[in-house]
């Protein structure tokens, strides 16, 4: 869709041939110049909006958007899943959930493998982000901008971290 209009052409075409005198055309073009300015601004805005609307929070789209914006040549920005924290829920006996056992270090686990259980503080730490936006070290100064860009698309219930690698 063409949103940029050359109002000079439009106006000249609207003037009957016998009135197409340079001065008359010029004064009408002056009248339209303000509208031409508005149209130019409008056109730039439409292109920006249409570009923005092409993207969303899907990994493939978000990755393309970020690379287009910040690493257009090498395209090193990637998105990876956050690791799911190993949340341990405690149940009442009446809920009949499978029991969960904690062992001393000296005890051999039933499956014979090391299976330590970690307790985390209730603050953002490893494993608390839904996904990571990985950017190369060279772009580390742009981390806050990347975060802002991702926030434009990030679903309300998802957390992410811009990870400089």
């Amino acid at each position, binding site marked *: *869709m063409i*949103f940029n*209009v050359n*109002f000079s052409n*439009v*106006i000249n075409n*609207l*003037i*009957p041939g016998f*009135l197409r005198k340079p001065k*008359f055309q010029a*004064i*009408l073009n002056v*009248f*339209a110049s303000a*509208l031409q300015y*508005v*149209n130019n601004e*409008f056109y730039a805005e*439409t292109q920006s*909006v*249409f570009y923005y*609307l*092409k993207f*969303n*929070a*899907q*990994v*493939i*789209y*978000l990755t*393309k958007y970020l690379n287009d914006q910040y690493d257009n040549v090498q395209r090193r920005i990637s*998105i990876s*899943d*956050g690791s*799911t924290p190993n949340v341990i829920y405690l149940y009442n006996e009446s809920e009949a959930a499978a029991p969960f056992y904690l062992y001393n270090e000296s005890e051999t686990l039933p499956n014979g493998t090391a299976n330590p259980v970690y307790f985390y503080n209730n603050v953002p730490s490893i494993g608390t*982000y*839904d*996904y990571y936006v990985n950017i190369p070290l060279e772009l580390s100064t742009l981390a806050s901008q990347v975060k802002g860009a991702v926030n434009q*698309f*990030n*679903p309300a219930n*998802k*957390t*992410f971290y811009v990870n400089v690698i």
Partner: protein
Amino acid sequence: MARTIATIYNAMITEKETFSNLSNLSPTAQANPAQSLLTDLTSTSKVAIWRLIFYVIAVAIWIHESLWDIFLANVQTIISNAIPGTLQWYVATIKAFQYGYALTWNGSTFVYSTIDSTAICVNQCAITLSEGTLNIRVATLAGGTILQPLSVAQETALIEYIQNIKIAGTQFNVINQAADLLQIAYTVYYNPLIIYYNSSNGSDPLNGSLISNPSVFPVNNAILNYIQTLDQIFFNGNFQVSDLTDAIQAAEGITNVVATTVNAKSGSGAYQNILSVTGQIYQTAAGYLAIDPAYPLSSAITYIANQ
């Protein structure tokens, strides 16, 4: 909504009339300014020049207002097609997966450059949500009728596809496993005028067939049709013993049906007795069922003539 040229033109005239020092200019509001303007322009009227100026500017403004309408309509169209991220959207998108093709950017969206229906391998897909993780059950049709798991290579490609199309931060598991197996035993009471059964030879291959058409086995067909319907129409639906019993009951020549064994299992697990489960309902792990080949239907049905 863009104003019409006449509306804009007349608004300008109205504005002009608020200036007393322009009262000598006499263009007035017009229902059709373009038509009257054409008439005036061919006359010697000096006023026509002013009206032309008004008209030209009105057209220019009208063009611009119209562009706003078009822009708004385009934006609304794009928004209405926005990715909803619902479970139904995931199912539809996963079913569109083409094995062997990569999504490519066409300038406005990621698409398959070639639509190849033969490359579509996810024929069944159901998604359930468990603690924030999408459990995506998939299966493919072999020979157009039998569901089976995707190949390892297909599953790997599918996982990569989902990694790309999913909403960032969404956790998912792809459950791509062989059908849950069903072990059944039924006692059916049949009408001996319709169903063939050789009571002196329980292994007669024609036992259970229609007398009028020995190639048709109503009970076996009813069971297989029920399972096929459950698999393909209600993929990941609940298997209910009463539904299977009803399906057999409805078979031609069958007067009464009693389920004696209905066991089901997932993978290499142990068989679970569905008859003893509350509601006699079984939720498949793979999303679909098949008769265990170790317990074929030929030995699963006990026929008793209805006297």
